[in-house]
Each structure stands twice: as structure tokens, then as C-alpha cells.
């Protein structure tokens, strides 16, 4: 689920079918106005003829060929065609294409990426599609639908489930009812999918307590964050976490996101600025590995620019996307994310290669997995070896402290003992008993109810986020659980470390 919209693009209901600008920014498109490029006509004619002769499977090759000899002047060779010459609608990477060709090309490119999702070709692949209600995710679903509808070999067996995460409690100023209505209509009525799950963001706090209470709690959490950047980031992490939970529930191993290339480029710059250099290559690739669990995220829309998506969507004439989005409605200077977005859109306007260059840069980077047991409690990206070392050091320090002061419930213990948390104490206690056993007992461990998050279990940038909380935050239970889990893991590792053959990085790189 990504809020893919341009910050100020405000697509309105009426906009979609008309020739209104796709975005309010300068986008270099040729809209449906009177100017027609003759060269395009030739190209289209050529293209159509080629297609009639060859099979569908070779279309891609043909398209490439067509791309190569766009300079020649084949005159209207449409003698044996049934299709009329299309009107150019888009300047697609220096090619002026008509709607038909454009649609095919997009589908081709999309299939190249969606193939990566499929592991076994016989059984239907279970996919969870995250719909935000924005243009990108809507187009994603439409493309997936096309993939399953194709005839013969082209048909893919995909078992598609849809989910929408309702964030209305965090962003009350947005019209969420419209969005939800749209998402429902779009999936079931227009595309004919059976069902869509609407999951409220509150579910991140568990489902046991009453909904209103959770809403309050969630709002409190977000209000506690002093910067907009952290609010947006926390929302993203919660959303991803929820998606993982839903995927587990629905028995899907794969979550498909509709993130466009623009958004990924923005994410690259923003994440780099936030100190996430270690995990950003993973987060911006087509396949996002989740080191902590077996669910993978996919971003098959990575090759499409926003403007390409908008054009495509506009021509589909399906349903108008509701006016929405997003937190980004605020001033561009209010958060790192919006600043990056603004900056990149400016650069993209100056030179339309900016986004591609950025994504090519990040293609050359990787996020090595150091140890799949060690992941950030908030964003679940893997910790760097340095962070793991720090964590292990803290564990060691605590142990020695524990041994020294057995009577004192040391406040600086592995998790500072604060007041108990109502939301998750029950699970805590159970796991803490385990903790006790592992530690070989001792009265102090019982006192260390880890109801707060240990900072060492967070990655560099989540530490910054955590510091942003004005008071000791009552964060989502999953974070506390993760944090505790991680402490236990590293305590365990500490106990057995003498017997591990190679406990240093070299060995763990192979894992």
C-alpha cells in the first residue's frame, strides 16, 4: 500500500476522462490535443502490420525492432490491418505510442516483473494485493487481472486476494469513506474479484481490546511523535506489519505492492537521508525480502513512472480515483519524505532521467543479510553487524550487572522496568518465564518485565524515530514482542557462543 500520488496532483472525479493535466506539475506528455505526430502514425502502422503477421509471443521482439527503426520512413503499411491507426497519446521513452500499443507494452513490461513472483507454474500462486485506492495500486490490480485473463500460454494462474488498510483514524482530514467505497467497487464490481479485506490500522494493536480504545491509543501514539517524518515512517512500518499479518492470516506468502518508480526513487533518497543505507537496497528492489519471516513483498510496478501510470489509468476509463491523499497534503517542507518528493519531482522536471538514474544506482547496491535472527524491532529490516555487536555488548553488560547486584532491580537492566503495559502484559509474562529459565533464574529477571522497547534492538534510523516520542511510548505490541524476542535470542546466543564454531560475521554472511 503506498500513497503513490504526487503531493499536489489532486486527481478529481472529473479529471480522469477529460484531457486535464495528469498532474499539476509539468509532465512531458503529449495529451490528446490536436497536434499529431506523423512519425507516430508510421510507427503505429508498422507496428500493427508486424503484429498481424507474427504470433503474440513474439510481440516483444517486434516492439523492440520497432523501437530500433523508428527513424525509417515506412509509409502507411496498413493494407492488411483491421485495426485503425491509433492516435498518439504518450511519449513513451521517446516513442510516441497510441493507446493500444501503449497498453500492450505496459502489460509486457509488467509481465516481465510478475514472472519473478511466480515460483511454481502449475499451481495457482496465492497473492495478496495491497490496495491503497490510489492510481498505482488500482492499475496494478487491473494488470494482474489481465495476466490471469490472457488466453492459452499467456494465461497465468494467480489466486489474487485484495486488502485495503484503513488509516482513517490517523488521517481524519482525508475522505476515507470515498476511498473505501472506491476500493470495494473497483475490486468486486469492476474487476470481478470476490472479496476485499478492509483492515483498520487499529489492528496493529491486536484485536482483543475494544475498537474505540485502540483508536485512541493509536492516535495517542502518533500525537506523541514530535516530527511529521516519524509519523509517516511509523505509519509505513505499521502498514507493512499489518500486511504481513494479513498475509499470514490468508495464507499468502506474497504481498504485491503498487509502488511506482517515482515513489521508489523518492524512497531511496529519503531513506538514505534517514540513515537507512543498509536496508534501502532491499526496500527499493522488485522483491523485498523480509528477513524476519517467510513473506515476501513484491513491487512489480517499479518500472513505471507516475506519468505513465496516470496516462494508462486515465485511458482505462474504469472508475475515477477518489480525491485523496495524503499526509503529503501539508507543506512540502514539513517532513523529510515530502522534501525528497518535492526535490525529485523538480529534478525529474528538469531531466526526465533522474528517477531512472537513481534506480539504476540502487540496483548496484545490496542489503546483505548478516543474521536473519537479528532484525529491527520496528521496521524488521536486518541489523548491521555493528548494531548486532552493540546489542550483544549490552546483553553482556547487563549480565555482569545482574551478577553484581543481585538484589537491586537495576533500572538500566536489559529493558528498563517501567510501568506495566495493559495491552501485552499477559504474553509478556509467559515469555518472561521462559526468559527466567534461560537465564537460570535469579530474582531480578522477574522484575525485568520488558514492557518498553530496548533501543539496541532498533536499527539506526528507528532509534531516531523512537527518540522522537515525547513520552515513553506505548508502541504496538509487535514491536515490544520483537524487541523482547531479540533480547532473548541474543541472550541465548551469548550462552552458547563458546560452542559456536564461527560466531563472527564471515560465517553469518553465508546464512
Amino acid at each position, binding site marked *: 500500500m503506498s500513497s503513490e500520488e504526487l503531493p499536489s496532483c489532486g486527481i478529481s472525479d472529473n479529471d480522469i476522462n477529460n484531457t486535464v493535466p495528469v498532474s499539476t506539475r509539468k509532465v512531458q506528455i503529449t495529451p490528446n490535443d490536436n497536434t499529431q505526430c506523423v512519425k507516430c502514425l508510421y510507427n503505429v502502422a508498422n507496428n500493427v502490420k508486424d503484429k498481424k503477421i507474427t504470433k503474440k509471443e513474439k510481440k516483444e521482439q517486434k516492439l523492440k525492432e520497432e523501437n530500433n527503426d523508428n527513424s525509417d520512413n515506412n509509409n502507411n503499411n496498413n493494407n492488411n490491418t483491421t485495426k485503425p491507426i491509433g492516435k498518439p497519446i504518450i511519449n513513451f521513452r521517446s516513442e510516441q505510442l497510441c493507446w493500444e500499443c501503449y497498453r500492450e507494452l505496459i502489460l509486457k513490461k509488467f509481465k516481465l516483473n510478475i514472472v519473478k513472483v511466480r515460483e511454481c507454474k502449475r499451481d495457482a500462486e496465492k497473492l495478496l494485493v495491497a490496495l491503497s485506492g490510489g492510481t498505482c495500486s488500482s492499475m496494478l490490480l487491473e494488470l494482474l487481472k489481465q495476466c490471469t485473463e490472457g488466453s492459452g500460454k499467456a494465461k497465468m494462474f494467480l489466486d489474487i486476494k485484495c486488502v485495503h488498510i484503513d488509516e482513517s483514524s490517523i488521517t481524519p482530514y482525508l475522505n476515507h469513506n470515498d476511498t473505501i467505497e472506491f476500493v470495494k467497487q473497483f475490486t468486486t464490481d469492476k474487476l470481478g474479484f470476490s472479496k476485499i479485506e478492509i483492515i483498520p490500522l487499529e489492528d496493529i494493536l491486536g484485536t482483543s481490546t475494544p475498537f474505540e480504545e485502540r483508536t485512541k491509543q493509536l492516535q495517542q501514539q502518533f500525537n506523541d511523535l514530535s*516530527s511529521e*517524518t516519524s509519523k509517516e515512517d511509523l505509519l509505513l512500518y505499521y502498514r507493512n506489519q499489518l500486511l504481513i499479518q494479513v498475509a499470514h492470516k490468508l495464507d499468502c506468502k506474497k504481498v504485491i505492492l503498487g509502488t511506482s518508480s517515482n515513489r521508489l526513487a523518492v524512497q531511496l533518497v529519503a531513506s538514505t*537521508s534517514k540513515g537507512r*543505507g543498509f536496508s534501502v537496497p532491499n526496500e527499493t528492489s522488485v522483491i523485498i525480502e523480509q528477513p524476519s519471516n517467510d513473506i515476501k513483498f513484491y513491487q512489480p510496478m517499479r518500472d513505471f513512472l507516475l506519468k505513465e501510470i496516470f496516462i494508462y489509468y486515465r485511458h482505462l476509463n474504469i472508475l475515477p480515483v477518489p480525491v485523496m491523499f495524503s499526509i503529503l497534503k501539508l507543506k512540502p*517542507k514539513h517532513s523529510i519524505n515530502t*522534501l525528497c518528493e518535492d*526535490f525529485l519531482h523538480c529534478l525529474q522536471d528538469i531531466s526526465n532521467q*533522474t528517477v531512472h538514474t*537513481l534506480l539504476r*544506482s540502487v540496483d548496484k547496491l545490496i542489503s546483505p543479510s548478516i543474521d536473519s535472527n537479528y532484525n529491527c524491532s520496528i521496521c524488521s529490516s536486518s541489523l548491521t553487524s555493528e548494531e548486532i555487536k552493540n546489542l550483544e555488548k549490552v546483553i553482556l553488560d547487563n549480565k555482569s550487572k545482574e551478577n553484581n547486584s543481585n538484589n537491586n532491580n537495576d533500572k538500566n537492566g536489559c529493558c528498563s522496568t517501567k510501568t506495566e503495559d495493559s495491552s501485552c502484559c499477559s504474553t509478556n509474562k509467559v515469555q518472561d518465564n521462559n526468559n527466567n529459565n534461560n537465564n537460570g533464574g535469579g530474582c531480578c529477571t522477574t522484575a525485568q518485565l520488558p514492557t518498553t522497547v530496548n533501543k539496541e534492538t532498533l536499527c539506526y534510523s528507528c532509534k531516531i524515530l523512537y527518540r522522537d516520542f515525547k513520552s515513553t511510548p506505548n508502541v504496538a505490541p509487535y514491536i515490544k514482542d520483537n524487541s523482547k524476542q531479540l533480547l532473548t535470542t541474543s541472550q541465548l546466543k551469548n550462552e552458547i557462543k563458546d560452542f559456536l564454531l564461527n560466531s563472527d560475521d564471515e560465517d553469518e554472511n553465508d546464512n
Partner: protein
Amino acid sequence: MENSNNSTNTTNTAAATTTTKKKSKLCEICNVSRPVLKRPKTGEMICKECFYTVFEDEIHHTIVSNNLFKRGDRVAIGASGGKDSTVLAEIMTLLNKKYDYGLDLFLLSIDEGITGYRDDSLETVKRNQEQYQIPLKILSYKELYNWTMDDIVKEIGLKGNCTFCGVFRRQALDRGAVMLKANKIVTGHNADDIAETVLMNLLRGDIPRLQRCVNIITGSEGALPRSKPFKYTYQKEIVMYAYFKKLDYFSTECIYAPNAYRGHARDFLKDLEAVRPSIIIDIIHSAENFHFREENKMPVQRNCIQCGYICSNDICMACDLLKNLNSGLAKVKLSINLKRGKDSNNNNNNNNNNNNSNNNNNTLKLESTSVTN
């Protein structure tokens, strides 16, 4: 009368509250003196003395923890007369005395031959020399290459001139250091410069440079490693230090450096910093944690067959550029380079080379070889 009384009363109370406020606000480090500044890096309110201590200690820590120097090293300080290098000279002399590094320090200035810019800044450097009592060596493009930047600009115009300047300066610094018998060079690149370079290299897709640009020591494989003691030091703090210490520095932008693209990046970084002050360090942290795919091999180092300088081709960049300058082909060649640069959208590829550490622009090198081929 009553009214005025009232108003005076209120002003009195207001004054009282402000004084109590002021009293309650002491320097967050020493808790004794009144704070005079908000530290750009952390936002702490601290006093002048504490600022000096923190600032100097941080750089000392950077130097020690990264093993930048060994006792007895002969260190050339690249001095332009600007704020960074002036503060660097001050700090290096100060720390050298305070912690007894046992270093021989030298000032090394390169005279690019830019009238109205470098001649003025060199005066500053000369004053610095007197102040810090360390030897100064000025090396000019004229004596090394027989070209001044003024001449070069006359020859090739204002496009791509920074390429020449950067390539030449890099080599000139090395040659100057050799003349001084120095075995290390320090430059005044600060955290802002490095963060900016990281962003620029990402935006350009320049992976080899992205790999190098955050290293605190570059060129360690050669005889003359360069280091950046200000790697974690904010530009604002450097300016603050220079301001409070009333250091004598020269602050004018080079008259030949119209750099739109870097300007964008710089403004962007300023905006980011306003939102979250730690962002500069965060970017550096990110870049330090970038892991590169194995196939991105670094170019193999060898020596230029003409001048012996370390490079990754047969002929080093400087010799190559010089050859073209002398044969009057520079403009033609450069325009090809620029054209290519535009094609791949790396317009201002080659500017501010001094910010990027090791070998000069790799892509540019490739371009130039392919042109000669």
C-alpha cells in the same frame, strides 16, 4: 496613572520571568555559564568555551579513532584560505600541541591563477602562515602546467572548466606534498560536503565514487593518503568556530564555478537539515552502510606513462587534458564529453572534483579514452 503603573508592573514581571528563564537556562554541558549558541549538530544550548571543547574533542576523537596520523608524519594541509581550511589549520596546530601528535605540519596552497579570487585568498593563507608559524608552499598551475585557469577559461569557455581545475588541483596537491616531503595530506572537507557528494553520486549513478566518497582516508594504497578530519563536522559549526575565534578567512565563491546541479543538492540538503539536524550524519551513516554488488570492481591503479602519476589508464587525466589544451583540441574534446554527459544526464559530472576524493571522475575517464580511441 493607574494604567501606566499597571503596564510597568507587567513589564517588570515579564522581565522577572525572562531573567528566571535565563537563569534556568545554563549551558547544557558545564551548567555554569550562560549559553550563547545552539549547537547545530545536536541542538544543545551551550556556552562558547564548551563549544570549543566539544568541537575540538570531536575532531580529536575522529583523528584518533581512525588512526589518521602516526607520530612523525609530515602532514600537508590543503589550504585555500576559505573557512574550512583555515579552521583546519587552526585545529591541526592546536590539537598537535594539545595532544602531542608529534606531527610536522605544512600549509600547501595551490594557485590556480584565477584573478580576483585565488590571489586574494592566497593573501589570507599567507597571513595564516604568520599566525600559526607553519611553513607554507604555494604551487601554481602556471609553474606546473604552464596554464593558468584564466587562460584555460579563455581557451575553452565556462563549460567544463571545473574539470580542468579539479583534475589539475588534485595532482598539484600531490606534487606539492611531495615537494614538501610530506607523507600525508589533510583537506577541509566537512560533513556537509560529504553528505552532498553522497546525494550527488546517487543522483548521477556514479557508483565508484559513491563507494569512495565516504572513506575518511582515500588513496591509502598510494604513497600519499589523504584524509578528512572534518568528516563528521558540520559546516555550520566550522563557521561558528571561525566566527567566535575571529579567524581570518576568505569567503568568496570561485568566479568560474556556476554549478547549478550541485546548487540544487546543496539547497535540498539545507532544507533537510532544517527538518532534522542529524540528517547530515545520517546520510553519511547510510553511505557507510551501503554494500555494493561484487561486480562493481574498482579500476586497477597504475602509473601514467608520461608523468608517473597514479591513474587507471595509460595516461593520467591531467596529462590527457593538458595534451589537448596544448594542441588546441580541448574545446572540441570537451564538447564531446559534455554532449555525452548530457546524454546520460550527468551534466555537471565534473565539477568540484576536490569534493570527491580519489581518482578523478571515472566516467569521464572512460569517456575520454573512448574518444581518443
